[in-house]
């Protein structure tokens, strides 16, 4: 066991971890932040996407010890203290970008990372970026629509396919 320290959602976080403790388990079990989900545990599904030093990573495929000294942001860190949602979160709500909601934390974290790098993506770019985020409910259409809307683009002509 070793001590690990990092900043999570702007606040200092620390705990005892084993070498094999995954970042996602540290976030969920030690810190109690259960918004980050574990879908597949094999880095396929993307439900566990968080930001480490501003970059989207799969928290099931990184050890907690590797996050020592980093700035981690989880889905709990997106909305403001008073509950005001980010434009991406609002758009997911407005455009029904979720059904069961299990993939949503990872979808939102991937979308936020994408829009930071590419503030006005095309539909094809959004779909390409979401390659590593699997949703079994929505068929992706409304997720893509929500992200395009969050980027400030007109989505009124995007029909359901």
């Amino acid at each position, binding site marked *: 066991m*070793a001590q690990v320290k990092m900043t999570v959602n702007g606040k200092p976080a620390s705990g005892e971890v*084993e*070498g*094999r403790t*995954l970042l996602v388990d540290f976030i969920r079990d030690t810190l109690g932040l259960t918004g980050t989900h574990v879908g597949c*545990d*094999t*880095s*396929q599904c*993307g439900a566990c*996407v968080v930001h*480490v030093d501003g*970059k*989207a*990573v*799969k928290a099931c*495929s*990184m*050890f907690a*010890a*590797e996050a*020592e000294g980093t700035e981690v942001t989880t889905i709990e860190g997106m909305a403001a203290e008073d509950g005001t949602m980010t434009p991406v979160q609002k758009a997911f709500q407005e455009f029904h970008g979720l059904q069961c909601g299990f993939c949503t934390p990872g979808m939102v974290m*991937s979308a936020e*990372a*994408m829009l930071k790098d590419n503030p006005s993506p095309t539909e094809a770019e959004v779909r390409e*970026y979401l*390659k*590593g*985020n699997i949703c079994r409910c929505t068929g992706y259409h409304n997720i893509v629509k929500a992200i395009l809307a969050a980027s400030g683009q007109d989505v009124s002509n995007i029909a359901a396919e």
Partner: protein
Amino acid sequence: MYAFEIERPSTVADAVALLKQSDENQALGGGQTLIPTLKQRLAAPEVLVCLSGIDEIKGVCTDDDGRICIGGGTTHGEVAAGSGAYPALVWMAENIGDPAVRNRGTIGGSLANNDPSACYPAAVLASGATVVTNEREIAADDFFDGMFATALNEGEIITEVKFPVPEKANYQKFEQPASRFALVGVFVAKFADGVRVAVTGASEEGVFRWTEAEEALNGNFSASALDGLSVPADGMISDLHGSGAYRAHLVAVMTRRAVEAA
């Protein structure tokens, strides 16, 4: 996962010292292959020596000979962002896995693992790149040693890879859509002194050069030069995603596409 300790050295020298303490110690690059492997209990290291804290093996630069020099600990995302002078290499890097995987996985980790379906081995072999370690420089032609095997010694770490920039190049990847590895990938690079064609995903021996195609393209760098050429299905990977014959067919198709797009 079996239990193990993690060490996070900040220099190559410290990492090598840790690796040499025991045969059971293993290097951890970005972990995008090794962590799933550990979860399946297919590896049981005593100590994982994490290379992600070593700044001296990160980053992309250009040397005096115009080669693109990429630190072994550089992620696929950083390779794509920093290798603009070599567009085929950029395309290859930005089509590995997905964005989150590209933010962790490293060029050194991919090459040291030498997965028979990985993309980097094709780029390194077709480019005639040089793999630099803490011990020596290894030519691409001497580096790959069959499926999951390389010329690396125990405790040897890839610190840098130097890519000469070809006149023309292209990488064509026929993606296995579930794993996003190459079912077959072909990297074609045309230099002043000849053409190199490297194939990944196809052979049971791992990445290989298709020398017959290289000879044909040396005289005439066009897809028509490949007319009638094929690779034998013997020794090709055969699995539920495709037979050996199918992969052999894909090698010829993807090579033509790469030449046309170069």
